[in-house]
């Protein structure tokens, strides 16, 4: 691979920033609402499933490279129902090391030098280095706030149709969308997805749809798969995550679903990168999916119950933040919340580092208030930094005690 690309990618690696903030927040006295993973336990049957799988001899040895048979069959069942179409477990599914691994396999398989890839800001930070590692050029388009609106919900952020259209050209290989979106929590509406689909079809472009938070959808909203829109199945790779679905980010399993003529190239990448994913973990996820498939549509289904549990936490955190004088952006989905800190009027001009306001704010907040968040300009390209530098991101898939601890800090803050 071209070393030039890798060096450039290194410069853009936001994970370095994540690592920096992680170590800042590693101080146990800091209440950590920064990192995006649960501190609540996964459902017990999922852990039990792993223990059971690990006790079977065969489950400790290699399984099928493109996905453990019982897992791809369970995925075919669950998603067949969701998509309303038959999904071939062996040809239209690839199991990967997390959603991350799916993104990587997709980029390496389908993107190369000379291609352009459209990325919507704010974006999950790995998209840019992955596009660059594949030798292609990222083209950015920001979500914009509806004029005249105080930021109240993630639905107030939209894509300008003319602006989006202007980003497509003959070099555009793909557009990456993330719905529900990290960090804003926006869920793209059918109309918005149709607009994107129309452009993909017009310009003969692929769509990589990162839907790892697909089940975390709050009341009044619906997650729609762009791959189900007319003409889109054949040009879309949809990415999901067991880690986000079952609150087991440390299992690092995900999957890509798409038509055979695209999926087969992802499979080629898989067989030349890590060949196969861990067997007992795949077996346990398969069991978890089978269990919840039976419960789909019922309140006990984890796909629904987790969202309900998180909605309560979402609302609690929003209240806490409002009482502290901040302006939360209520997310329609996902487990992050953006917060506008403008109204706090915090003067950080004495900090002379050449960093965006949100970086300075978060570092100050960790040090002075012992509360950790993530700066949102970490998720945008250079040109959009000014637009987002008054926002920080909180993660609310945390124990109530963690949220209350944050609440105490914020309550005292409002008083001072």
């Amino acid at each position, binding site marked *: 691979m071209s070393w030039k690309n890798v060096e450039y990618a290194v410069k853009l690696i936001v*994970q370095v920033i994540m690592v920096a903030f992680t170590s800042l927040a590693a101080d146990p006295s800091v209440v950590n609402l920064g990192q995006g993973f649960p501190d609540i336990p996964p459902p017990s049957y999922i852990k039990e499933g792993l223990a059971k799988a690990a006790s079977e*001899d065969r489950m400790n040895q290699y399984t099928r490279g493109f996905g453990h048979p019982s897992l791809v069959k369970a995925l075919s069942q669950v998603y067949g129902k969701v998509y309303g179409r038959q999904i071939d477990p062996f040809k239209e599914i690839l199991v990967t090391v997390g959603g991350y691994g799916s993104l990587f396999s997709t980029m390496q398989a389908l993107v*190369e030098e000379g291609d352009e890839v459209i990325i919507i800001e704010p974006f999950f930070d790995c998209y840019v*280095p992955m596009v660059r590692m594949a030798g292609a050029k990222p083209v950015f388009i920001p979500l914009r706030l509806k004029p005249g609106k105080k930021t109240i919900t993630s639905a107030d952020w939209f894509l300008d149709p003319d602006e989006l259209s202007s980003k497509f050209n003959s070099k555009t290989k793909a557009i990456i969308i993330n719905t529900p979106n990290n960090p804003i929590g926006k869920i793209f509406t059918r109309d918005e997805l149709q607009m994107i689909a129309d452009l993909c079809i017009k310009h003969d472009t692929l769509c990589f749809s990162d839907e790892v938070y697909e089940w975390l959808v709050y009341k009044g909203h619906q997650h729609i798969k762009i791959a189900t829109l007319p003409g889109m199945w*054949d040009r879309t790779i949809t990415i999901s995550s067991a880690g986000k679905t079952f609150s087991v980010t440390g299992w690092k399993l995900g999957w890509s679903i798409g038509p055979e003529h695209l999926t087969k*190239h992802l499979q080629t990448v898989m067989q030349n990168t890590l060949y196969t994913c*861990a*067997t007992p973990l795949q077996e346990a996820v398969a069991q978890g999916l089978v269990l919840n498939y039976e419960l789909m549509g019922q309140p006990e289904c984890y796909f629904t119950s987790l969202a309900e549990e998180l909605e309560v936490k979402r609302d609690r955190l929003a209240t806490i933040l409002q009482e502290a004088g901040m302006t939360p952006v209520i997310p329609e989905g996902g487990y992050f919340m953006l917060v506008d800190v403008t109204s706090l009027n915090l003067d950080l001009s004495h900090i002379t580092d050449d960093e965006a306001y949100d970086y300075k704010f978060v570092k100050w907040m960790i040090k002075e208030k012992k509360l950790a968040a993530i700066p949102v300009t970490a998720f945008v390209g250079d040109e959009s930094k000014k637009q987002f530098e008054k926002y920080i991101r909180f993660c609310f898939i945390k124990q109530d005690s963690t949220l209350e601890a944050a609440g105490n800090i914020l309550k005292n803050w409002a008083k001072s």
Partner: protein
Amino acid sequence: MGVIKNLAASLIVIRQSSFRNNHKIIMSRRLHARRTDGVDKNVWVEFTQLAADYKAVNLGQGFPDFSPPQFIQDAFCKAISGGPQMHQYTRGFGHPPLVKNLAKFFSRIVGHDIDPLEDILVTVGAYQALFCAFQALVDEGDEVIIVEPFFDCYQPMVVMAGGKAVYVPLRPREGSTVLSSGDWILSAEELASKITSRTKAIVINTPNNPLGKVYKTEELQMIADLCIRHNLLCISDEVYEWLTYDGAKHVKIASLPGMWERTVTIGSAGKTFSATGWKVGWVISSGHLIKHMKTIHQNSIYHCATAAQEAVAHGFEREYEMFGNPESYFKQLPAMLHHKRKKLALCLQSMGLQPIMPEGGYFMITDISSVKVNLNDQSNTDEPFDFRFVKWLIKEKGLATIPVSAFYSPEHRKEFDKYIRFCFVKEDSTLDAAEDILRKWSQQE
């Protein structure tokens, strides 16, 4: 450029339409990246499927069909029922307890103070370690010398990184009957002749898959001398490092003078603890090389599964305490496999076949040129003889093996198409079942 692009696009359309019968052409442009060209065939995908389809007695793919040792299974169970952090992300470059234990364990062996955070990267199996190594260290136009026979993934990984593979074969010693993997040697002159100004690295695998050769110190020294003289990197795949037989000793090339800073050593928990399905591997090297592999890892996979790493960490802690003792799994496993290796060899010899006794590893190759058989396959006479033979053996006799020419470069495949590879890391009952099949077959002749 535009003309060629359009022409290529049209050709793709024509090809696609002939493949897709009545399907509408949805996309008229070329879809897949060029880096996936020519690396889409895979011997494991093909033969694993075949073995499964025919429910063959499987001495093909290299994995144990017995369980991992109790202590490692217990460690995994303990990790699974551990605190919530066991099921969430851990440190991307390697779970802290694991890298600490790997550093402690291997520092003692390599004779170098290994920094757990700088000199180690944990990966999804040794496979991903190899991927990170090739992606990080091989640039467009670099040449990489691969010693044949080689684990098949090295070649497509070099190609995917934009490099060029240059091959040098191990050859059976002149004059003697070739009875052991130790009789296959690397010619120093032949190896030196392959080095050019574009050579970046040499890849060795010891103990070797499929041959079972365990490189001696003098052989490694010869390779080391060339690496130092020509400023080459050495990628040393040592996944079978604990599996040596008949007094053969595994030597780490990284421990030779001048080699630590230019060697990338790859290991596997799957092969170490007989748990190939856990997919935990690692690279150990000097920090200045590891840092580039970290970049690749961070932008492709980023994290490996936490609980499995925790379990492997415990495994290494135990083995550190037990090192050199008879209860050490690193002594017990080779002792157990020693017996199975002998069992398989006797079985093959009684069939009139000539196995090459491996000094190490999971596998035994055997010469099948004396076998008279009508392969009856009208299909594919283009395929090397051993491929066709192995397919016939699966379909007609229900016994799965792997054709050895899969481990050779396209240019040398025809020279080495009369060997098949058996994996003997199997329950005795599996080896017995294989023996039955072979005995019945020889009785039919």
